[in-house]
């Protein structure tokens, strides 16, 4: 998704940023760190604005460089997004976040969206987090992702093409793989 949106955005003042949630990284994927990573991607394309430098210098002077608090991070993000024509945020595997962080992130996104009509958010995740999303965004549009047979066939074909022991497979086995696996998967 990120790459397609980047292609569309080429040449315009449109930012596309993303983040992959990972249950193995739960301890460091706090809401503040996630929003910080989004902000980092924004400023790495357009340069670091003066107000972020000032906030950094202030934090360094006063508290030995401690990190931003969530409300401050949200305010800085809002401010930075204003300068863009449009901004797309893609967050993958939202279900892998700790529930507390997930709720907090959704609420923060809601707050940012309220101030930024030029923003679009794409979330992916397992269906069970649907209720939490609806709680914050009751009109959120849903696309159910299901594996389609054509996709499975092209993936199988690729794997067969790169097989390191192609002689272990005769034409019949190959044909069975190409027929049975796509059928079984779409029955699931």
């Amino acid at each position: 998704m990120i790459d397609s949106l980047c292609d569309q955005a080429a040449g315009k003042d449109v930012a596309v940023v993303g983040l992959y949630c990972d249950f193995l990284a739960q301890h460091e994927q706090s809401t503040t760190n996630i929003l910080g990573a989004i902000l980092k991607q924004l400023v790495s394309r357009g340069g670091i604005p003066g107000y972020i430098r000032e906030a950094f210098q202030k934090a360094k002077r006063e508290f030995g460089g401690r990190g931003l608090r969530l409300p401050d991070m949200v305010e800085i993000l809002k401010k930075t997004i204003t300068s863009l024509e449009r901004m797309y945020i893609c967050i993958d595997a939202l279900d892998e976040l700790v529930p507390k962080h997930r709720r907090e992130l959704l609420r923060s996104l809601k707050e940012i969206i309220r101030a930024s009509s030029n923003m679009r958010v794409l979330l992916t995740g397992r269906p069970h987090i649907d209720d939490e999303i609806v709680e914050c965004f009751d009109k959120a549009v849903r696309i159910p992702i299901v594996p389609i047979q054509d996709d499975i066939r092209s993936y199988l074909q690729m794997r067969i093409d790169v097989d390191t022991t192609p002689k272990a497979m005769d034409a019949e086995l190959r044909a069975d793989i190409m027929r049975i696996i796509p059928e079984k998967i779409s029955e699931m």
Partner: protein
Amino acid sequence: MLSGRQQVTGNINSFNSIINFITGIDAEGLQIMRWLSPLEPQQRHQDVRSDRLDGVGNWVLETTEFRKWSDTEDGLIEPVLFCCGDPGVGKTYLR
């Protein structure tokens, strides 16, 4: 002869100046980036990109829902799109 430690520091410094040259970010800028967040999502994105098979999942980009979400003027569309699916269906690998 430089000591091992000096050698390493020298290498790190020249490595940092190469990064600065590439990204156009000064030393304070790098500190700010680290201060904003320790997360580096670009790395995972590179891995996903190189494992992805072109064309697979492109049907999602053709759906009316996706097109409206990405193309409609601000304020006329719900800004949140949720691609939901069970584990392993390919949500991460949508192009």
